[in-house]
């Protein structure tokens, strides 16, 4: 059985990408909401 404490290399990159995706999601939401709220 593989030692579960040893993590494969791709998990590190996926963790970084996940943080970026979440920050990007929040940022897009804030931007979109502000854009729609602003009267033309």
């Amino acid at each position: 059985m593989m030692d579960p404490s040893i993590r494969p290399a791709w998990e590190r990159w996926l963790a970084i990408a996940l943080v970026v995706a979440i920050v990007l999601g929040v940022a897009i939401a804030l931007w979109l909401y502000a854009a729609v709220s602003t009267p033309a």
Partner: protein
Amino acid sequence: MSNLVGATAPRTPGLGAVTAYLIGMGGLAFTITILWLSMRAVMGIGGACASGGPYVPAVECPDAVELLTPLSIFGLFIFGGLAAWGGANLGGRWIGLIALGWPALFLSLGWNFLEFGFAPPSGSDGDLVWSWIFCGVVFVLMGGIPLIVGLRGAAMVAGSHRAYAGGRVLVGPKQGFDAMRDLQEQLQQAVEQRNAERADAARAEAGAAYAQEQDRDVAARLERLARLHAAGDLTDAEFDAAKRATLAGASR
């Protein structure tokens, strides 16, 4: 083939699964943020609004709320589904992170209820809106309790992995490992104590048997001396000397 949760060691995942997972998780963050902002906007105008339909509503919804709120509610399911599909291909740890969306949603919306409940934007100053405060408490409990339980569970699983990494075969949390080690030490002490007691008992038994044997020897020698004395083979003096020597040897 997809991994079952935690069933196999993680392998390098496909690009499709990673993309679906990242879009799903980013999308969940997006929709929760939109819901949070929309809720604040509605609470800021008194807590209720309406748009469209045959009637003239008392409070028109802000444009952003009208456009984005229905979208974000559908988005929760669409992005949640994408993240779950991708996460199922990545393994147990990754699909488990989707569960954090629940406390994120309820704690953030609960915050809005509490903030506007304690400081309502309209109406008389200083009045508390108890219905909003009640909702806020319920939402914080709904988000906070699963979060605490989940984090404790994750910490226990991490503990069991460290114990395994220490070179010991162990299935279970770190607490289980410590309990097993204590039990092993107690068992070892009990075995050592029992062995020591058995050895003492064996020594005592051997000593008693030796003493009994000695007593039998002395009696037999005295009987033999008496027979020799009676037969006239030993004089009175010789018999007395031999008897004294025998008894002196026994009492040593």
